[in-house]
């Protein structure tokens, strides 16, 4: 199969991932809807996944570690999403809101 | 070890039996440790040769940190003071509704004995802190007012001081060859000048707060005033001595070359403290506050004497430590009696008490005179030696320090006059003879030491010489 890194440097993937990651991060900071926040976090995770995959490919030589890691990240992301959505639903049931900026009763 | 364990056991016993057993019994029982001390001296065959003999030594925190107790002349005098005063302090308890007072005092006794006997840096620190705890609770539980505010200030203040000391100790510890806290090992550490200043400053801060030396005294007056009499006695009678003892035993030999750097500073501060305390004491209305500031004045002199690094100053200081313990405890005892029997300890509400109990008046007077350092009372020899040492160190400071004998007379006599003489506003209810006995013992000591101070000097002299040798050995300050 073709190796993409024959015509590409690894740094391109690093930059791409970082950009994606920071977009997600920006979203987390910028948005207030908890669901969108969760989605942005998923986006961040995906950026990481992409990076892992790229590294894994770049290492070559039967290194499956990166891809395995991506696999586990996906596993965890699924579990996290489930729990996160459960929490969201619970909060929504109690407050009818998913806007995180309204949840500030706990403070100093 | 015995005199640490014994009070501890007694303390636990007292805690569990509660107030079922009369305080007198506990007072008498705590005298036991005095005998234990004598026994210990016999048992370990300790000679008065100035060496700090080990009496107990087991590994504790690690191989380098031992549980080491030692005894020499200086330590002996200090534990004598402790074990002599604690029973008296217990006997001075007037009411029965202060349940945990006796266990705490006994616990304190154990800790104090530990402080004075600890031959291992960390142990010293631990006992130092342990001694703080009971007194903290005594003050917190039984203070007359503002208990929390006063005690927290006191506690944090002294705690910061001790932490500074801990930092210095750790520094020294890490510098020792085989990581040990043993006193001799710590002594043998060679520090360069700036190191020794930092290390010395750490020690000094801890002791300066505890003593207290002038700008670090602000915990003192309120704590003394608000604390129950027993607390004040413990604080001023014995705990102050911890600071002075530390100054002599730990700070001065360990400070290295920097002692020359600290010497003028401490002496200056101490002398300022002498006058400062005395001046404030002049107008005080509350007897305990008055004694607090007088104490500030007196211990300042002791600290100054120590820092002159002369044999006269140090021995005089040690003597005066013992003496001040006796005097100040006696004074607080008297205040306690006045307060319980006359109902107030404010000078403006007192007066004319002399006519009610001649014996009390006489004993009070002797204690006042002892504090004012009249010859043939115990205050005199120490003060003489201290003033001489300060005078020899620097004439001007000597003269200023000497003002204490005038100012002390001013406020002590004022205190006596306004409480005892004149036409009375207050009356003194019958004082039982039992209550006079501790006072009698103290007064006997006031006279006895006043006449034969050399007996005590002989006890401490070899140890002091050894300490001075240690100071001079590592630092070349003394010729």
């Amino acid at each position, binding site marked *: 199969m073709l190796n993409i890194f024959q015509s590409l440097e690894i740094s391109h993937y690093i930059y791409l991932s970082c950009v994606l990651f920071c977009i997600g991060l920006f979203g987390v900071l910028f948005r207030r809807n908890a669901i969108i926040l969760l989605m942005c976090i998923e986006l961040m995770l995906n950026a990481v996944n992409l990076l892992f995959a790229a590294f894994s490919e770049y290492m070559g030589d039967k290194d499956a570690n990166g891809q395995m890691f991506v696999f586990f990240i996906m596993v965890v992301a699924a579990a996290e999403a489930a729990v996160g959505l459960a929490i969201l639903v619970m909060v929504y049931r109690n407050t009818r809101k998913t806007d995180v900026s309204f949840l500030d009763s706990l403070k100093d | 070890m015995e005199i640490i364990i014994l009070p501890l056991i007694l303390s636990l016993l007292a805690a569990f039996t509660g107030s079922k057993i009369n305080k007198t019994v506990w007072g008498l029982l705590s005298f036991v440790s005095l005998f234990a001390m004598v026994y210990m001296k016999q048992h370990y065959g300790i000679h008065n040769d100035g060496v700090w003999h080990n009496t107990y030594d087991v590994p504790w925190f690690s191989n380098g940190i031992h549980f080491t107790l030692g005894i020499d002349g200086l330590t002996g005098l200090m534990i004598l003071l402790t074990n002599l005063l604690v029973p008296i302090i217990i006997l001075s308890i007037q009411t029965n509704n202060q349940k945990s007072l006796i266990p705490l005092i006994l616990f304190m006794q154990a800790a104090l004995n530990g402080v004075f006997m600890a031959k291992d840096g960390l142990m010293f620190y631990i006992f130092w802190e342990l001694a703080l705890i009971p007194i903290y609770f005594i003050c917190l539980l039984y203070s007359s007012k503002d208990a929390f505010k006063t005690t927290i200030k006191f506690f944090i203040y002294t705690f910061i001081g001790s932490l500074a000391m801990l930092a210095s100790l750790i520094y020294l510890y890490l510098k020792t060859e085989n990581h040990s806290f043993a006193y001799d090992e710590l002594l043998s550490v060679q520090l360069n000048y700036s190191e020794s200043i930092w290390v010395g400053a750490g020690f000094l801060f801890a002791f300066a707060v505890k003593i207290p030396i002038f700008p670090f005294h602000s915990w003192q007056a309120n704590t003394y005033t608000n604390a129950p009499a027993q607390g004040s006695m413990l604080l001023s009678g014995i705990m102050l001595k911890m600071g002075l003892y530390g100054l002599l035993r730990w700070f001065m030999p360990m400070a290295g070359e920097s002692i020359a750097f600290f010497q003028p500073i401490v002496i200056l501060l101490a002398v300022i403290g002498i006058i400062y305390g005395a001046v404030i004491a002049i107008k005080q209305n509350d007897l305990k506050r008055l004694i607090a500031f007088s104490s500030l004045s007196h211990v300042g002199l002791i600290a100054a004497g120590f820092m002159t690094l002369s044999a006269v100053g140090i021995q005089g200081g040690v003597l005066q430590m013992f003496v001040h313990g006796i005097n100040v405890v006696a004074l607080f005892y008297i205040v306690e009696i006045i307060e319980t029997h006359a109902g107030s300890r404010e000078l403006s509400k007192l007066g004319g008490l002399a006519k009610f109990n001649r014996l009390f008046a006489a004993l009070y007077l002797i204690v006042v005179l002892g504090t004012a350092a009249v010859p043939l009372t115990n205050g005199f020899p120490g003060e003489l030696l201290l003033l001489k040492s300060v005078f020899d160190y620097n004439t001007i400071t000597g003269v200023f320090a000497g003002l204490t004998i005038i100012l002390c007379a001013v406020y002590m006599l004022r205190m006596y006059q306004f409480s005892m*003489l004149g036409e009375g506003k207050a009356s003194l209810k019958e004082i039982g003879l039992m209550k006079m006995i501790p006072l009698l013992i103290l007064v006997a000591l006031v006279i006895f030491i006043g006449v034969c101070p050399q007996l005590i000097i002989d006890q401490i002299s070899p140890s002091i010489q050894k300490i001075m040798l240690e100071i001079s050995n590592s630092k070349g300050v003394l010729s």
Partner: protein
Amino acid sequence: MNSIGLILGLPLAGFLINGIFGKNLPKSIVGWLGTFTVLASFVIALGVFNDLRHAAIPSEGLHFKLFTFLNIENFNVDFSFTLDRLSVMMTLIITGIGSLIHLYSIAYMHEDEGFYKFFAYLNFFIFNMLMLVLGANFLMLFFGWEGVGLCSYLLIGFWYKNAEYGKAARKAFIMNRIGDLGLLMGLFLIFHQYQSLDYSIVLPKMADGSTSQAMLTAISMCLFVGAMGKSAQIPLYTWLPDAMAGPTPVSALIHAATMVTAGVYLVVRCEALFYLSPITNNVILWVGLATSLMAALIGLKQNDIKKVLAYSTVSQLGLMFVALGCGAYTAAMFHLATHAFFKALLFLGSGSVIHAMHHEQDIRQMGGLKSKMPITYITFLIGTLAITGFPFLSGFFSKDEILLAAFDHNKIVYVLSVISATITGLYMFRMFFVTFHGTYRNHHHSFDKVHESPWQMSLPLMILAVLSVLGGLLNLPSYLGHNVSMKLSHWLAPILPMAESHAEMSHNTEFMLVGLVVLLFVLVVLYTRNKYVSKNAVPEEDALTPSTGKVLANKFYVDELYDMVFVKPLELLSSLVDNMIDSKLIGGLIAGVSTLLLAISGLNKKIQNGNIEYYLTFMVLALALFLGFNLFF
């Protein structure tokens, strides 16, 4: 050896027995015990005196070491005593007059509830005073020095229920302490210079000229400050008149005959030192002179019988210091002795009067007492004559010797001294005449009740009167013949090696000067007699005194001045330091730290505002910060 122990020990024993058991003993035993212990000391001292007369080396005395008081490195002080010619003289005066006053007190204090306490204190005072004069080193001297101050405090405040008395006692003690500080500093200097405090070591070294002048001056000034305090010289004299608050025997013993002369003793003891410090000598001279004049002037307007005597004492002490300043040490000692006789006599006499008048001390309330109290009257007269220098009484000789010395030293000093002596006559006779002559003026206390005192009081009066008359024999001037004269000078000569070089002046000059003094004396007597007996004038009420007199009556406002300059500022300072510096500044700093911490702590509320967006942003920024730092470092 043991005689010193006994001399000291007997009064101490008396003190202890009376002090501890006195409350339960009958008054007679207490009183007689106190008296006999002192008397016994006197007798022993007499024996020692006799021994010393025949001693092989006249400057040597007996030594007695009890134990080591302190011994640290080279600082070595023994509890040791010495009894040489000087101290035996002092001892005799102290114990002699002391025993008389004890005897007197038995009757005088008979009614008092603190009878046993009084005797205990008196005995204790004798003990301390003896320690002062017998001590073999400066520290022992200091012991006694402070000890007598203490006893003085106790006895002035003897009637403790009176707050004013307590105040006076405190004042005395504190003023003494100021002097004591000077003395203590002197001690330190001495030790610093000579590495010892023993007379036997220090004094010869002082004399041998090896000490620098500055050091000698410093030491002697320090010691003189001590002497000022004890001997009530300017500026530390104000306590002595106030000290009259104590019972009269106390005034007689302590504040006239013995304790106040301790300063003179000190200077004489350190004769070598003072002799070699001319600056100090001058200071002593002028201080003494000023004190003498000032006290005499104040004495002119005092109406309290004891106050008059008190100022007279201050004045006489001033004269003694004049003598010391002139280098006439023997003259000072001579006057010390005669003064002890007649001043004790006068005080006891006044005590007798006061006793008769039931504690009335104002001379304006007296008058015409001579008929009711013949013995007191006669003895008082003798005392008055003695102090004012009636020819051939003791005061005449001793005072003349001082005046001669002054004349020899400096003519201005002489003139001023003579004025002082003359004023002495004025106020003494004023008091004497107002008290004993004229008419009885007291309306509260009937004249019939005035009575002569019991024999325990009269006997000491008579003995002292005899001594006042004969005291001059101690040191008759040389013009009266070599066999009888200058006994005291010879006696003290071995102790005072330096001052021997006293220039002899011609007898003619002496006679002339003596004549002048006698003339002045006669004038004074005539004037006062005219004013107070013939015209029967009574001193005015204080409020009515004219301006100059008012200044005198108010003692030059010195007390007020001191109050304003020292006491008030000190109290103000105390409050200021307590309220401002201690609570506000230092306490405030500490409180400030915790307030600051709390304030900083409160800032956390701004960040920890419960809003997750803020948290996340802060976290990201912090992360960026770390990464950024990583970039550059």
